[in-house]
């Protein structure tokens, strides 16, 4: 002899349908709280996704970087640069790496083709740059080992540079002047394009690469811009795990090369990714906490309205008891009703949150990613609120004395 859950649900739905406006007002806090959670989860997921996409576009999670250590106090001495010999030694110590590319850049080099000038960034690189950037020439060829060894006067143009000097014509075989050096154009890089969902990053987040020129690292050091320092090396490992291992292996090697001075910092993309994820999680946690406060307040409001509604429905409870409802039946009736209300609020919150994702995303100029599991999180939270704040009203209702309840007007 018991009222089944389906029965209780039926009663609950009927009760809520009867008091539509009140139920809606009751549940407002939950709706807003759940909506907040949805939006925050979507922002965090969006941030993580665009970070991941960016990382993948820039060499993926298998990348290890050696760069200037901004945290090092240079008053302690030390030279934050590598010589070509040091780089060769470093490279020989890590044969397991898939690609090894040091970069030096010169922004003050003058570039000229006949009477046209162009203020393009000039980069001295190894052939492995193609692997590191996952970027290849679509006309001609890239710099090879021989070019580096022989300090050859060759240059590969970014597509924007090529277009500037030659328009639609092929630049291959022509020469341009970089500073006072005549450089033969051996290739043109493919057009680099990456559209991020993140509006802050612009239409083509990688367009700056199209405005670059690449020459052998040795040519740069010895002919174009003597005295420029090599302070950046990018290495690609076989896979993300190997990158983490490689990073650990490189740290002491680099430290030893620089006489124990921490002028360089070795970092893996995986770590950077983890850090970004962590910071986006902290960001998310703060907002989820704010949402939780809203939910808590919402829960307390629901509890109070349910308590008031029980006062109002005392006679009904008395009648139900008189005709054979057990305390458990009354408890379940009110519990189910509270949970139904909060779950309903959760559904509204999810819908509303989903509806405003684009608006919020557009306003914040941030990518928002709605995932299916967020719906479960939001629903679980709202049902949980109902279960917690439904207890007190349900206990109060089920503890009523039938004689006193029936006497209530």
């Amino acid at each position, binding site marked *: *002899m*018991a*009222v089944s859950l389906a*029965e209780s649900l039926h009663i609950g739905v*009927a*009760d809520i349908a*009867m008091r539509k406006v009140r139920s809606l007002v009751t549940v407002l806090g939950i709706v807003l709280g759940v909506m907040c959670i949805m939006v925050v989860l979507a922002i965090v997921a969006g941030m993580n996704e665009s970070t991941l996409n960016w990382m993948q576009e820039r060499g993926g999670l298998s990348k290890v970087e050696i760069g200037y250590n901004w945290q090092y106090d240079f008053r302690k001495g030390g030279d934050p640069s590598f010589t070509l010999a040091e780089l060769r030694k470093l490279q020989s110590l890590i044969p397991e790496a898939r690609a090894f590319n040091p970069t030096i850049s010169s922004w003050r080099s003058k570039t000229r083709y006949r009477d046209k000038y162009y203020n393009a960034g000039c980069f001295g690189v190894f052939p492995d740059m193609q692997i590191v950037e996952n970027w290849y020439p679509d006309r001609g060829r890239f710099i090879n080992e021989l070019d580096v060894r022989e300090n050859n006067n060759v240059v590969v143009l970014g597509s924007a540079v090529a277009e500037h000097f030659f328009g639609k014509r092929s630049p291959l075989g022509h020469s341009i002047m970089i500073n006072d050096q005549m450089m033969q154009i051996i290739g043109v890089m493919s057009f680099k394009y990456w559209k991020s969902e993140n509006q802050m990053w612009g239409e083509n987040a990688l367009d700056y690469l199209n405005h670059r020129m690449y020459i052998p690292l040795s040519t740069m050091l010895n002919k174009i811009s003597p005295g420029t320092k090599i302070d950046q090396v990018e290495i690609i490992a076989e896979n993300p795990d190997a990158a983490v291992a490689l990073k650990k292996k490189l740290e002491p090697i680099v430290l030893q090369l620089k006489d124990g001075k921490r002028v360089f910092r070795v970092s893996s993309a995986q770590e950077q990714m983890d850090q970004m994820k962590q910071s986006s999680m902290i960001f998310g946690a703060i907002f989820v906490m704010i949402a939780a406060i809203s939910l808590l307040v919402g829960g307390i409001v629901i509890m109070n309205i349910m308590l008031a509604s029980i006062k109002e429905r005392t*006679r*009904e409870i*008395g*009648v*139900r*008891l*008189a*005709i*054979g*409802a*057990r*305390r*458990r*039946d009354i408890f379940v009736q009110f519990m189910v009703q509270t949970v139904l209300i909060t779950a309903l609020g959760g559904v509204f919150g999810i819908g509303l949150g989903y509806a405003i994702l684009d608006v919020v995303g557009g306003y914040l100029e941030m990518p928002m990613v709605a995932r299916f599991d967020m719906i479960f999180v939001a629903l679980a939270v709202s049902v949980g609120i109902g279960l917690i704040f439904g207890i007190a009203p349900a206990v109060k209702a089920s503890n009523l004395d*039938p*004689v006193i309840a*029936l006497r209530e007007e």
Partner: protein
Amino acid sequence: MEIIKTTNLIKDYNLGKVKVRALDGIDLVIEAGEFVAIMGPSGSGKSTLMHIIGCLDSPSGGDYFLDGDLVSKLPRHALAGIRNRKIGFVFQSFNLLPHLSILKNVELPLMYSGSSPRTRRHKAEEILNSVGLSDRLRHKPNELSGGQRQRVAIARAIVNTPSILLADEPTGNLDSQAGGDILEIFNNLHSQGNTVIMVTHDPAVAARADRIIQIRDGLIDYGSIAG
């Protein structure tokens, strides 16, 4: 067969420091199939007696046998089942649930006894038909007259075929015409073999019963035993 038997039934209420004795040793026997009226001035303890007979309340002392079972010592949750299966209540103010259709109101006791929705509906329709309300199944209580509402209440009270029908001033809120109709239904139910116990202070109503039990100051004045 004795459907109700009480021996030295006592009920005390604690009103702060003062202890009030509402029932002061009630010995009462009601046979199955009797139509009994309980009378008494307000404060005499007749409502308290009704609550105990109806298993809404438990006595402070003494024994109460319903249908041969000692129910006065049963815990609250067990009393709920007894109310559901053995007792049908009819109240002065009808006590229908205002938001439910009259069909749903009548189905309620069957729901708490665990009948399937189909059985419930079938039985409720049948009972409402027997009290002449088959054309009002979907109506809400406030769309009915007082007399019709009380007929719904009676239908709800008897739908689970209880051992006793307990009516507390069932005609108190009705005009004499409607009241007469309701008493006619009770008479019919009695003649079909139902045990009817009616609390009233109206001698004309009480006169319909086989026996009048008069309560005064928590004691039975007369009428404690049939015959």
